[in-house]
C-alpha cells in the first residue's frame, strides 16, 4: 500500500466479473513472505504446501475478496489500484478493536470493585467482551451503510507497480 495525504492505496487483481460487479483479490501487502525467513515461516503459503488450504496465505487472501461496480473496460486479470481513506482505516480499527476492549475492561474493573473475586471478574469481562463485539457489529453496520468502509477504484496499476513502489 502507498498513500497520499488522505487515501491509503493498495493493489488488487480482478478475479471475476458478473452482473456488472467485479470481484477483486488484494495482493499480499504485508512484510510477511518478504523477509529472509519466508521459506521456513509457518505463516507463508509455502509452509502449507503452497496451496489454498485452511490457514494458508492464499486462503486468507481469498477470504478478503471484495466486490466493486465494474467500470467499463475492466477484464479478469487486470491489476488495479484501489483506495480507502486513511480516516476510514483508523475508524475501522477503532470499531473492531477498541470498542470490545473498552467494554471488557470496564466490565472487569466494575466486577473487581464490587465482588473482588477472580472468577466473577473473568466471567464479567468475557460478557463485556461479547457485548462490545455486538456494539462493534452495530457500529460497523452504520459505517458500512454510509459507504465509509468500501474501497474505491482509483486507476489501473502500472506493469511493475507494487505496493512498495
Amino acid at each position, binding site marked *: 500500500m502507498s498513500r497520499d495525504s488522505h487515501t491509503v492505496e493498495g493493489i488488487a487483481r480482478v478475479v471475476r466479473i458478473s452482473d456488472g460487479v467485479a470481484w477483486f483479490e488484494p495482493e499480499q501487502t504485508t512484510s510477511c513472505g518478504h523477509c529472509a525467513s519466508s521459506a521456513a515461516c509457518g505463516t507463508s503459503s509455502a509452509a502449507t504446501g503452497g496451496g489454498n488450504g485452511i490457514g494458508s496465505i492464499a486462503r486468507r487472501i481469498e477470504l478478503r475478496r*471484495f466486490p466493486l461496480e465494474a467500470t467499463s473496460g475492466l477484464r479478469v486479470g487486470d491489476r488495479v489500484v484501489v483506495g480507502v481513506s486513511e480516516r476510514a482505516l483508523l475508524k475501522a*480499527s477503532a470499531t473492531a478493536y477498541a470498542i470490545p476492549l473498552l467494554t471488557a475492561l470496564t466490565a472487569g*474493573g466494575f466486577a473487581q470493585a464490587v465482588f473482588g473475586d477472580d472468577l466473577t471478574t473473568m466471567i464479567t469481562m468475557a460478557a463485556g467482551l461479547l457485548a462490545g463485539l455486538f456494539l462493534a457489529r452495530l457500529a460497523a453496520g452504520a459505517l458500512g451503510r454510509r459507504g465509509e468502509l468500501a474501497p474505491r477504484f482509483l486507476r489501473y496499476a502500472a506493469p511493475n507497480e507494487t505496493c512498495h513502489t
Partner: protein
Amino acid sequence: MKEFALMMIGAALVNNVILARFLGLCSFMGVTTRIDTAAGMGMATTFVITVSSMADWAVQHYLLDAFGLQYLRTVTFILVIASAVQFTEMTIRKVSPSLFQMLGIYLPLITTNCAVLGVALLLVEGKMSFLGATLFGFASSVGYSIVMIIFAGLRERLALAAVPRLFAGPPIGFIVASLLAMAFMGFSGISTS
C-alpha cells in the same frame, strides 16, 4: 487503584515491550513504514494480547498450576495465542466482512509476534490477579502501539531526508530506534512520591 495505574505506566513506558524488553522487533521494523499501517497493526496486537492475557491467566491458574503441568507452559501459551488470533480473525469476519477486508491482513503477522508470547510469560511470572494480568497485557500492548506509531512517524520523515547511502534503509532505522530507546529510558526515573 493506584497499584494498577503504576503497574500500567510501568508496563507501557518504563518496561516497554519493544524498547526495553526487545520483543516484537520483526513487526517493529517491518510494519512501521507508514503511520496508518503501524496504527492498524498496533490496535490489532493490543486486542490479541489483551484477549490472550485473559486466556493465558485462566489456563495457567485452572489447568497448569492445578495439575502440576507448569513445564508445558510455553507450548500451551503458543497454542492459546494461535487460538486467540484465529478467534479474533473469525470474530472480525462475523462482526463485519467489510472490516475484515480492511484489517484482516494484520492478523496472521500477530501469530508469529514474540511480543505476545513474551507478555504472556511475564504476566505469569508476576503472579498477578486476573484483572491485574489483563491490565498488564493491555498496557504492554498500548506501549507497543505507541512505539510503533512514533517510529512510523520518524520513518516517514526519514524517507524525505537526505541519508548517506551507507546508512539508507534499515541501518538508519536502527540508529533512530536506538535513540528512541534512550529517550524512553527517561521514563525509568519517574517518581511516585
